[in-house]
């Protein structure tokens, strides 16, 4: 996986990267309380969160003591396995026709992700269409149309301020008529504590289910890798609203690695499906748990 090598390279660029601290840690010879405390700090500084970090380290400490492990390299492998266990999921393949509903809070990269995915699916020889259901943010539809031009994919859009559910309704009719395999729906960013905006999203979701019953509907939430513990509340709220099937983790080309998803995946049974690693049209990859963990550790 070339892309994760890239992440590893970028990680190496920053002194703050947890990988470096852990690297130092695993080079130590003595396994004592300080060792585990340091490990806990590394996980916390990767946004894994206090509760999950403590949980992982306690589990690890117990195993290390029970099995009398002395070699830091072995402990590293054990840590790797613990994290893998939490984030490695089998993802059921898409059944066409598919509708992917892209949701999330403001500024995580929904429109960019929709554009990149359109290009990716088109390259696979699928018939793709996009719906600009972000009718709120200024010039959001124009932004999606630029991606549409780049990918050579049609975009269904209405005027700014139009009812997003109506855009989706039209897009579904058009997708059916044109025998489309995948319809990608871009939605407006909304904070999870805004009740009205969340019910608007729920309405879009219901319209899809009602108007295209035979389609395989997948709700994705786009999570910015720089986010902190608020991601937990984001996923809870969106899951309740549109039954989230997957996470897209974006901006992994920065120095943050979105450690909070380790906590979320473990608790909520929601897999990470894609990762975004740049602003180019090809900068999206299927999630690979092993490479991801290796890039972090």
């Amino acid at each position, binding site marked *: 996986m070339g892309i994760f090598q890239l992440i590893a390279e970028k990680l190496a660029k920053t002194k703050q990267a947890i990988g470096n601290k852990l690297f130092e840690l695993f080079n130590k010879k003595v396994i004592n309380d300080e060792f585990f405390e340091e490990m806990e700090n590394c996980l916390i500084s990767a946004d894994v*969160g206090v509760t999950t970090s403590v949980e992982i380290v306690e589990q690890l400490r117990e195993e290390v003591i029970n099995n009398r492990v002395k070699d830091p390299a072995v402990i590293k492998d054990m840590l790797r396995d613990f994290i893998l266990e939490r984030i490695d999921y089998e993802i059921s393949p898409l059944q066409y026709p598919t509708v992917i509903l892209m949701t999330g809070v403001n500024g995580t990269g929904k429109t960019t992700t929709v554009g990149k995915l359109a290009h990716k699916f088109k390259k696979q020889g699928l018939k793709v269409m996009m719906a600009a259901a972000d009718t709120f943010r200024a010039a959001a539809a124009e932004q999606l149309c630029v991606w549409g031009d780049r990918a050579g994919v049609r975009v269904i859009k209405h005027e700014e301020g139009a009812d997003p559910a109506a855009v989706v309704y039209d897009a579904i009719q058009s997708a059916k008529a044109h025998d489309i395999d995948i319809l990608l729906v871009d939605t407006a960013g909304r904070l999870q504590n805004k009740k009205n905006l969340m019910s608007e999203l729920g309405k879009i979701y219901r319209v899809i289910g009602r108007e295209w019953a035979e389609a395989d509907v997948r709700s994705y939430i786009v999570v910015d890798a720089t986010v902190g513990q608020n991601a937990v509340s984001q996923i809870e709220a969106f899951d309740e609203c549109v039954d989230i099937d997957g996470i897209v983790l974006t901006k992994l080309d920065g120095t943050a690695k979105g450690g909070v998803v380790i906590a979320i995946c473990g608790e909520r049974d929601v897999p990470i499906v894609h990762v975004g690693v740049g602003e180019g049209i090809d900068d999206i990859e299927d999630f690979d748990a092993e490479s991801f963990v290796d890039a972090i550790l």
Partner: protein
Amino acid sequence: MGLFSSLSEKLNHVFSKLKNKGKLTDLEIRQAMREVRIALLEADVNFSVVKDFIARVSEKASGEDILKSLTPDQQVIKIVNEELTALMGGQVSKIAVSPSPPTVILMCGLQGAGKTTMCGKLGLHLRKQGKKPMLVACDIYRPAAIKQLQVVGKNIDVPVYEEGTNSPVNTAKNAIKEATRLGIDTVIIDTAGRLHIDDKLMDELKAVKSAVNPIETLLVVDSMTGQDAVTVAKAFDEAIDITGVIMTKMDSDTRGGAALSIKAVTGKPIKMVGIGEKMSDIEPFYPDRMASRILGMGDVLTLIEKAQNAISEQDAIEMEKKFRENSFTLDDYLVQFESIKNMGGMQGLLSMIPGMSRFNPDDIDESKISRIKAIIQSMTPRERKNPDVIKGSHRQRIAKGSGTTVQEVNQLLKQFEQTKQMMKQLKNGRGMKLPFGMGGFR
């Protein structure tokens, strides 16, 4: 993370055994600091910032003044809160104005932080202060970013300068010339979102900065940012020497520890915050309030301020007198609801009450409050003064008049009775200044 996970309650638990002893041992301070540490980490304060902070607070807490405390948990919270506020910067920091116009403000930050929206909000904010601002579109990378700024500018009636995909350095330079020509006094430059480790784009930002020599270089940061906020802020500050920070999306339910981290590592003040989807949703940053929010203790100061704005001193005294004499009527009840409405509704209020910050304000049905109002307004003045006279047929009439049901009328009367009972109990205590004498509106 339930309703009762706020720090004050956890600390309460830690100190429950020592209530009324009024003294702290080192062990107790350590236990308390463990809770403070977790609270700060859960609020996304950077972990090394937390470490330094805990060390400093522990030292202070083990000093003499702690011994004078009434209850240990209150004392600890007070110290933590004071130290946090001091670290946050103490006072409100305003946007600087250049002595030789135009005042140039350069906005920068990561992708998706909310720079373009913030340019608009800031533009409107300054326009309302009587300034003549102009927005400059220097994001030539993100599709339709220029268009977005143009739409934003049109909405707030502020001119937007752009040169398409011309180099940001040239665009910015020409914009200043144009501003001088048009008599514009404030120029806000929107730049592309960039990663702090993207050398090429960081160089571009440096070039823009040295070309226009801004008096303010503001880093726009998403308030939901995690531990990495420190890395990002440090990198931007080292590269282009920022003068301040703007936190966006503060209307989310994040505790916003990133604000503290950034202040701690850069020493630069947080100047403004974005608090909503509308262009007018921008506020100055209040360090003390942020401290309470990070600790999950609610925004008590904002609440008090809002209460003061909504209720005149005279009204408050009047109300207090009525509480004392127990001559509180349904009319007064109505007045209380009006005050709540003036204070931003039940939802807004709850989010500011300590311990309620985790409570989902959406669970409250604001329409219920309007129904209650309708019920009271459907009563005769006599009924409002003395609810005891309201009999079965009256209730039916009131329900019809207000478009509600008899059950709802009954419920209201019961609640009113309970409120009165509660006030009786409060009578012997301190006088109530805030209209909290209401229960059960969920």
